[in-house]
């Protein structure tokens, strides 16, 4: 079984420092870590590898050169290798563009490694953009069936058994391969890397794919039924040059891309309007309401006062 795990580098606290003048993210000052949800995907892949030691795990990340560090994190955890997809033209990619690029990268990796990807694992969402869109979009572009918000999975005849988180009762699915799964936090902990593997990962040469490498890939793009009259899809080349021109603009925090960089015209717009991308502290925005503290030495009295207010305001 060959598993490609998509990982993204995100700011540690999940909130990048935003540069007001440019509408961009000052990423350099943030400590960059692997998106926590991607670690759950990585953990699920490692658990499959424990079930079947013949399982090969390839980490894949798209982003600036510095994103190589999250690939090394994955190798330290047990991934066999890691591919970095990076190119100046990918900067500011939105989810649509990223899913095009990653779908193509999967095909290039298959060719270079001489394998078929049996499964692509992703985090269910990122802590920066947080759109939860990358996995489902990538699945469609690859033509794979998908299960999102998976908690765990294991091998079964011809595929995998997957448990999906669901408020009305978790669902168990059987899914054939190849497939795409996105993972959320399961009840089991994620593992820590072994020191010897960390050192090994540090010295490892990681393959890098640029726009040209992806261009040479066979045109295996998904969208089998894209209809010209409706979608006028720029399905010509591998899509990269055309794609960032469309979709919800570059200001949409991308997953897998190098960050939340406001597009040129959004910046212009910021000039006329004050802010297109604005920094705001959650505590001051819409939240200037301050508790009316109900003071009473006695819990019963405080509660009586509270319920009186709530009933008179028709809240209860």
């Amino acid at each position: 079984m060959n598993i490609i795990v998509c990982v993204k580098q995100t700011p540690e606290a999940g909130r990048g420092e935003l540069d007001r003048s440019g509408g961009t993210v000052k990423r350099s000052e943030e400590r960059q870590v692997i998106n926590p949800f991607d670690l759950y995907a990585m953990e699920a892949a490692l658990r499959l590898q424990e079930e079947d030691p013949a399982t090969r795990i390839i980490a894949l990340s798209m982003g600036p050169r510095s994103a190589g560090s999250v690939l090394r994190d994955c190798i330290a955890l047990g991934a066999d290798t890691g591919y970095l997809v990076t190119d100046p033209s990918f900067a500011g990619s939105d989810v649509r563009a990223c899913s095009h690029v990653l779908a193509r990268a999967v095909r290039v990796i298959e060719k270079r490694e001489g394998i078929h990807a049996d499964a692509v694992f992703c985090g269910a969402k990122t802590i920066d953009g947080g759109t939860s869109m990358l996995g489902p979009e990538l699945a469609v572009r690859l033509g794979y069936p998908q299960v999102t918000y998976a908690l765990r999975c294991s091998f079964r005849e011809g595929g995998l058994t997957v448990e999906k988180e669901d408020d009305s009762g978790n669902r168990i699915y059987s899914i054939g391969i190849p497939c795409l799964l996105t993972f959320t936090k399961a009840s089991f902990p994620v593992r820590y890397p072994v020191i010897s593997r960390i050192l090994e990962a540090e010295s490892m040469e990681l393959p890098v794919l640029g726009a040209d490498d992806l261009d040479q890939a066979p045109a295996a793009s998904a969208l089998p039924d894209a209809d010209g009259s409706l979608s006028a899809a720029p399905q010509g080349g591998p899509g990269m040059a055309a794609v960032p021109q469309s979709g919800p603009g570059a200001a949409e925090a991308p997953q897998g891309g190098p960050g939340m960089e406001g597009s040129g015209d959004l910046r212009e717009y910021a000039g006329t309007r004050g802010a297109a991308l604005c920094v705001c502290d959650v505590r001051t925005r819409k939240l200037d309401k301050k508790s009316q503290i109900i003071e009473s030495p006695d819990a019963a009295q405080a509660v009586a006062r509270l319920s009186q207010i709530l009933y008179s305001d028709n809240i209860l």
Partner: protein
Amino acid sequence: MKKEIWVYLETSPDDRLSAGTKDLLAQAGAIAQLLRGAVLNGKGGSAAGEDIGLRGILTGAEAGRLEDAALEAVLYGAREVTVIEGKELETFSPECCSDAFAQLLKKTRRKPELILFGRSPDAMDLAPALAARLDAGMLSDCVGAVPGPEGILWERHAFGGSAVSFVRFREEKTPIISVRPGSFGGKAGAGVPCLRTPAEAAAVPVTRFGYQPDRVIARPSLIRVLESAREQGTDIGSADVIVAGGNGAGPEGFALIRELAGLLHGAVGASRIAVDKGWAPHSQLIGQSGKTVAPRLYINCGISGSVQHIVGMRDAACVVSVNTDPRALIFNVSDYGIVGDLHRVLPELIREIRSSRG
């Protein structure tokens, strides 16, 4: 052709319209108002002065079973309803559902101004899958919009709610947008007023569209559904009332929280620490790495109010906080606060509510 916004309609297991869908129809109505007279996109598309109607889209194996839901959709604001019927749609899958949607668009040659989705688990799978099939742009978890000279700017939060981004669609292709519950004036879980009389609703045409995939579509198959993990039968995403606990609660505190939630027909929520300590399942986590909620009433107990938690609950209409620490950050975002021990306050509150109901 009349301009339309398409709205994905979801049903509950009894084939009635889900509560979240009724809210979405109200939100879609507000968005249609906003679009009237606005510049739609960077290509200069405009809906100036035009009337924009809502078309509800239902999917299922038998259109007959969805008649009541279609009627409800009209009562709640849809101008027309299309039911996509196909045996592959018996159970939901993003694979077949997105294919059916794409086929409907293709065969009817329609081009809605927008396609709107809610934030249910199914909608969160379907909307991006459809976006990829159409190669359209998508914006998820939209919380608002403002008209701009070169198109509507759609608002969403990023970086866990600490930043706001305004996004404009640059092309004429139909954008796909998922809408956060409680935004655009919609009230999560609250009763949305009926907009028409049943007699008026019955006169509205419901169109059937037969779906047949033109190829084999690989999809996962559901083996079984595990015992429900949710509390009180209420999902926190659409709950009207939520009672949540944090580090200060402990297992006994959560027993009280569940009791109070049950009494108020509400759902139970939890902070990250409470989930990590195993007092509540991850599905009840509210905050950056969990769910975003906007109930009418949010009662929290023993939650200090980290930024990560606040971004998940700040849209609640009324916030009541119980905390022993008078300087807890949660009090900065609350309407009412009681400084006290939840183990003493909650039993009183439960008693008070019971007695007021006789």
